[in-house]
């Protein structure tokens, strides 16, 4: 077979499996999970009305009902705005979120028919920067949506969104520098490989969270601020204030929402890769389970591979659910508090983290 054709076939298959088979399904289920999870928090039942032939299946059909609703609703483009930009805005946000998945390694490379297949679509040597760069595409989505609507409330929402997202992008980038210093790479497989090691005679896995705890505590809230969800949801504030997506309806409004949920999955995958060992599971080596001198179980290669891929998926889903829980637990920040937190509290801490990490890495690592 033509090697070029073969490569493109493999890449297409990876895009299909990862994007359609995992990301889209998880993002779609998250819309259901958010409603159900919050309902259980609040002693409610949650969405359960949609049924097919009387079967309700825990309200899962509400996803289909939501889809049909947003497809069949009128797609209104404000005649007083800028129609081209108005149509473009939701797709930019969705594009930035979806494309980020290209560099996330979902598992260790596997050999199929004598060919090594990496579990990521492209193995970029600047994978970390790539995700951060495409994550900031969301700013364009917000600003274009607010501007093209030609509506003062949408514009105000967009302005709030821009100032929030750009402020927190600073914290986001600075907190990642600590991780880059420690792992010595911006290539995601290398960052994961560095985290495969152990400390204290193999009792503590050398994960990012243990190497850079402050970076995690700064990165995670900043990343939630990037996804524009509670407690940082002032750009939209769907319960009270009007946001940048005011003039959107139907499917394009739904795309903003879907983009938000895909961003949650991206963020969860990114956090798992940077701080929670990626596809590494504690005490699971290539040969099997090795727990110091206590435990040694040999496992076949394919089982280890499967456990790692499933473990990474479980980590992603855990962080997705954690973000949903944070959304339903915390109240919204007041806007000046939010900017104060970003610039005056989190950014100095991020700089301090870089400073201390640099000194420690220089003298020890």
């Amino acid at each position, binding site marked *: 077979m033509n090697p070029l054709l073969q490569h493109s076939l493999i890449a297409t298959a990876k895009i299909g499996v990862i994007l359609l088979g995992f990301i889209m399904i998880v993002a779609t289920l998250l819309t259901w999970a958010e409603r159900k999870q919050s309902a259980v928090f609040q002693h409610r039942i949650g969405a359960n009305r949609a049924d097919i032939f009387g079967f309700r299946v825990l309200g899962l059909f509400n996803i289909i009902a939501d889809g049909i609703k947003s497809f069949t609703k009128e797609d209104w483009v404000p005649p007083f705005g800028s129609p081209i930009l108005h149509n473009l805005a939701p797709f930019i946000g969705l594009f930035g979120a979806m494309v980020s998945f290209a560099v996330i390694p979902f598992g260790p490379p596997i050999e199929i028919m004598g060919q090594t297949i990496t579990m990521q679509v492209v193995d970029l040597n600047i994978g970390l920067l790539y995700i951060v760069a495409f994550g900031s595409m969301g700013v364009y989505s917000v600003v274009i949506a607010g501007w093209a609507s030609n509506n003062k409330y949408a514009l105000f929402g967009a302005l709030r969104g821009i100032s929030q997202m750009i402020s927190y992008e600073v914290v986001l980038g600075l907190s990642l520098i600590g991780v880059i210093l420690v792992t010595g790479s911006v290539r995601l497989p290398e960052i994961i490989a560095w985290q495969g090691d152990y400390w204290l005679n193999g009792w503590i896995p050398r994960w990012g969270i243990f190497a850079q705890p402050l970076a995690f505590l700064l990165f995670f809230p900043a990343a939630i601020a990037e996804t524009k969800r509670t407690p940082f949801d002032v750009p939209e504030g769907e319960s009270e204030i009007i946001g940048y997506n005011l003039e959107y309806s139907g499917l394009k409004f739904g795309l903003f929402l879907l983009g938000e949920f895909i961003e949650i999955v991206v963020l969860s995958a990114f956090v798992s890769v940077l701080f929670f060992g990626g596809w590494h599971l504690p005490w699971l080596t290539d040969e099997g389970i090795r727990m110091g001198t206590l435990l040694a179980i040999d496992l076949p290669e394919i089982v280890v591979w499967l456990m790692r891929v499933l473990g990474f998926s479980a980590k992603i889903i855990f962080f997705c659910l954690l973000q949903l*829980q944070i959304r339903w*637990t915390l109240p919204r920040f007041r806007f000046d508090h939010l900017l104060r937190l970003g610039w005056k509290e989190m950014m100095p801490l991020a700089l301090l983290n870089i400073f201390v990490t640099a000194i420690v890495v220089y003298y020890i690592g």
Partner: protein
Amino acid sequence: MATRFVNIENKLPASTALYYPAIAGGLSVTIGHFLKNMLYHTIGLFGNKGAREKASFTLQYPEVMRPLPRRLRTRHRIKVHEDGRPKCTACMLCETACPDFCIYITPSEHDDSPEEKAPLEFQIDLDRCCFCGFCVEACPKDAIHMDTQIMETSSDRRENMVLRLQDLVDPGPVVVSGPEFAGKDMHKVLPHLGMRKLDHIKPRRIDLSYRERQATEQGS
């Protein structure tokens, strides 16, 4: 007025000022509720009804309805005599009292009735009605009541929101409280006795705006 500056000591405890301990506390509260409710839901899956009720406080509304207070003002009805004639004598007091101008009575003379007057048609536009109950208070014959316990009066057509005499006399398959309905099937207590051409009357035009209608009232 002089401006006074007041220094308010608004020191948060360290656990709150650092955010993370407070956030962890909040998350532990919600996850506690989550786990407890999921436990009840899981027990409920095996058929334990009490556990299901513990897991959620909410009523599944269309299937389960909260008992309504007896005095709640709900959809109107017009009471009837023993023989089925409406008690209304078309005196127009309710139409006059109505602040929303949603009652339209077409009076008629009655051939063989003690009351001489009777409504040929009695319309209530529920789109306009604010459920104030003034019509009930105004009625000298105690003919109009708002105790049908019907609250679901929505429709996708404006015409369907206009109640006619027949709808008012027969509120439909709803258990109506009140001594005069004891043991009576509401579908059978129907009025046609002595009424003329009830089914042929077209609903009166009801698209008068509030101001127009007010002006007409005051002018006449």
